[in-house]
C-alpha cells in the first residue's frame, strides 16, 4: 500500500466515524464538518450500492474477456495456465494503475481486478504445482501457492479479505502434514495473538481490519484442532485414518478427555478474551464456538427431545440477550466494564443488517398446512367443480 493510499484510508476512517457519530447524535454537524475539513478525501469512491454493482460487472467483464481469448485460442492445459498468468499479471498492473494514478478506493472496479488477478495467478500456479509435485507435497504446495498469492495481494493492495483468505489457505497447507493438529493449535494461537495485536496497533486501517480476519481464522483453526468431533473423526490426522483407518483408536485414546475438556473450555476462553480486551470479534468467535460446542454435546449426549432443546435454547438465548441489555442499561451512564447496550455504531451498517433480516423474513411464510382433511385429498372429485378432478 502506498503512503498516499494509507493516508487516504486513515482520513476516510475518520470521516466515516464522524458521520456515524453525527447520525447517532454524539457530535454536532459543525464538529463533523471540522473533521471532514481536516481529513479531506483525494480518492475516487462510490457508495455501497454502486460499488457492488461496479464490482460485479467488472468481475463478469474481466472473466468474459478471459473466456473469449480462451475460446478463440483454444490452448491446452499449459497454454491455459500461461494465459491465466498473463491475465493475472495484466490485472495486477491494472489494479496498481487504479489505486495509484487513478486514486481509486472503495470504487468496486479495483477490488474486482485485484480479486480476479489473484484468482488467475493462483490458477496458473496450481497448474505449475500439478506439473512438478505429487502426493502430499502437491497438496501442501497447492494451498501454499494460494496462501502466498492471496496474502501478497491483500497486503499490497490493502484488501483485508484477501489477506484473510491467505491466512486460511496457510492452514490448508498445514493440514496434510504430520502433526497438523499441533501445528493448527500453535499457528492458530499465533494468528489470534497477532490479529489482536494488529487490531490494537496504529497500523493502516486495512491492516487493522486484516487483524480481525486473522483472529477469526486463528480461533477457527484452534477450535477445529481441539474439537472432540475433529479428534474422533481423525480430522487433521491424515487421510488414511479419515477414510480407511479405524476410528476406535481415537475413541479409546488417553488423550480423548483433553479434547472433551477443550471443546467445553475453548468457547469460554474466547469469550473471556473478548470481554477482558473488549474485542467484539473474539466475542463473536466465542459465541459461535459455544453454539458449536452445544451442538456437539447434543450429538454425543441425548439430553432431551429435539423440540425441547430447540425451544429451550431459543428462550435461553432471548432471555440472555434481554437480561444483558437490561443489566448494561442499569449501570452508571448505561455502561458496565466498558460495554454499553446503547447504539453507538454506524446506523447504516445496522440498516443493512435489518434489511437482510427483512429479506429473510419476507421469504418465509407459515408452513402450508398438510392436507389432513378429506377435502384436500386428490382423486375423489371433492375439490373444485364443473368436472374438475380434484387432483392438484
Amino acid at each position, binding site marked *: 500500500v502506498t503512503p498516499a493510499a494509507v493516508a487516504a484510508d486513515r482520513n*476516510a476512517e475518520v470521516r466515516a466515524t464522524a*458521520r456515524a457519530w453525527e447520525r447517532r447524535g454524539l457530535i454536532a454537524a459543525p464538529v463533523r464538518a471540522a473533521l471532514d475539513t481536516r481529513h479531506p478525501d483525494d480518492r475516487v469512491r462510490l457508495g455501497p450500492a454502486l460499488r457492488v454493482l461496479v464490482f460485479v460487472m467488472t468481475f463478469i467483464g474481466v472473466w468474459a474477456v478471459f473466456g473469449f481469448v480462451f475460446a478463440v485460442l483454444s490452448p491446452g492445459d499449459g497454454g491455459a495456465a500461461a494465459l491465466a498468468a498473463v491475465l493475472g499479471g495484466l490485472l495486477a498492473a491494472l489494479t496498481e494503475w487504479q489505486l495509484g494514478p487513478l486514486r481509486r478506493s472503495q470504487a468496486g472496479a479495483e477490488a474486482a481486478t485485484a480479486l480476479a488477478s489473484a484468482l488467475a495467478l493462483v490458477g496458473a500456479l496450481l497448474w505449475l504445482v500439478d506439473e512438478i509435485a505429487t502426493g502430499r507435497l502437491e497438496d501442501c504446495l497447492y494451498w501454499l501457492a494460494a496462501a502466498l498469492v492471496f496474502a501478497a495481494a491483500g497486503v499490497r493492495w490493502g484488501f483485508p479479505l484477501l489477506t484473510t483468505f491467505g491466512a486460511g489457505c496457510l492452514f490448508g497447507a498445514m493440514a496434510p502434514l504430520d502433526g497438523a493438529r499441533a501445528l493448527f493449535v500453535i499457528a492458530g494461537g499465533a494468528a489470534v495473538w497477532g490479529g489482536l495485536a494488529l487490531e490494537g496497533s496504529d497500523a493502516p486501517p486495512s491492516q487493522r481490519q486484516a487483524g480481525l480476519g486473522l483472529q477469526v481464522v486463528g480461533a477457527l483453526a484452534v477450535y477445529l484442532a481441539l474439537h472432540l468431533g475433529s479428534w474422533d473423526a481423525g480430522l487433521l490426522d491424515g487421510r488414511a485414518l479419515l477414510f480407511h483407518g479405524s476410528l476406535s483408536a481415537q475413541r479409546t485414546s488417553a488423550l480423548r478427555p483433553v479434547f472433551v475438556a477443550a471443546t467445553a473450555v475453548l468457547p469460554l476462553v474466547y469469550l473471556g478474551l473478548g470481554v477482558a480486551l473488549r474485542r467484539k470479534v473474539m466475542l463473536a468467535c466465542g459465541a459461535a464456538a459455544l453454539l458449536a460446542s452445544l451442538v456437539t454435546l447434543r450429538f454425543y449426549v441425548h439430553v432431551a427431545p429435539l423440540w425441547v432443546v430447540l*425451544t429451550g435454547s431459543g428462550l435461553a438465548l432471548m432471555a440472555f440477550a434481554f437480561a444483558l441489555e437490561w443489566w448494561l442499561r442499569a449501570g452508571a451512564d448505561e455502561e458496565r466494564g466498558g460495554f454499553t*447496550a446503547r447504539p453507538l455504531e454506524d446506523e447504516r451498517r445496522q440498516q443493512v443488517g435489518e434489511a437482510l433480516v427483512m429479506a429473510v423474513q419476507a421469504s418465509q411464510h407459515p408452513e402450508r*398446512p398438510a392436507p389432513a382433511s378429506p377435502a384436500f385429498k386428490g382423486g375423489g372429485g371433492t375439490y373444485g367443480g364443473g368436472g374438475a378432478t380434484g387432483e*392438484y
Partner: protein
Amino acid sequence: MSPDVAAAVEGLHRDGLLSAEAARPLRRLALGHLVSVHAEIRVLSYLGVLVTVAGAGVLLRDNLARLGPLAIAFGVGAAAVSCLAYVARQAPAFSWGEVESPGVAFDYLLLLGALLAAADLAYVEAQFTPLGAGWPLHFLVVAAFYALLALRYDSRTLFSMALGSFAAWRGVSITLHASLLFGHTPAVLRWNALACGAAFALLGQALLRKGKKAHFEPVAVHIGALLVLGALASGMGLRSFEELGFALGLLGAGAALAAASYRGRRFGLFVLGVIAAYASACGLFFRLDPGAEASLLFMAVTALGLVFALVALRRHFKEDAE
C-alpha cells in the same frame, strides 16, 4: 478501535472545537475503551426467536399423538398470547409516524408472538380444517394479522412479512385453482406476481403521499420491485411471443426502474434495475444462439461498458461513499 480517530478527536479538543467533557467519551469510543454491543444483542435475540419457532415447529410435527391436537394448539396459542400481551402492555401510543421502540425485548417478543400465532393458525387449519377447500385463505388471515401488528406497533419487519404472506396467499390460491381451471399455472402465477408487485409498489407510494407510516414505503417498493422483476425474469425466453414479451418487459421494467431510481437517488433500486436490464439483454442475446465466442464478447463489452458508464456518471450519483 482507531488511533487515527482518537488523534482527530484530540486535535479538535486541542484547538478548542471540542470541550474536555465532549471529547472524553469520543476518545473512549475511538480507543475501544467503550464498546457498544447493541447489534450483538439484537442478533442474539433474533437467533433466539428463530430457534424457538423452529422448536415449536418440531413440537407441532412430532408430538401430535402424544399430546393431542387441542393441547398443542392451546399451548402454542397461549405462548403467542403471552408474548403479544407483554407487547401490548409496553407499547407506546399509536402514531402514523415513526415510533421509537421501547427496547429489544419489545421488538423480538412481538416477532416471536406473531410467528407463533401464525404457526398455531396453520396448525389449527391443518388439523381441524375450518376453512375447508378455501384453506389458502389462512395466508390472507395471517397477512392481515401481521399488517395490523405492523401498523399498531410500528414494525417494518412485520410489514414485510405481511406482504410476503399476501403474496403467498395469491400464489397458493392460483396454484390450486388455476390448475383446475386452466391446467397451466406458471403463466397465471406470473401475472399474479406482477399484479402483486405493482400493488405493493402503489401501496408504498400511497403511504408516502398520505404521510401515514411513510417509513414503510421502502419495504413495499423493494418487495414490489423484486416481485415484478422476478415474475418477468421467470417468463422470459424466445420460444413464443409471450416469452419474448416477458424478456422485453424485463428489459423495459429494469431500465425504467433504474431511470426512476436514478432520479430519486435510490441506489439499491437503481442497482436492481440495472441488473435486471442487463440479465434480460444477455438472455435475449443468448437465445439467438450466437456461439460461445460471440456470447463471451457480448458479456465482456456490455459489462465493461456499463462499468465505464457508471464510473463516468459517478459525480451525478452523489451516493454517500462512506
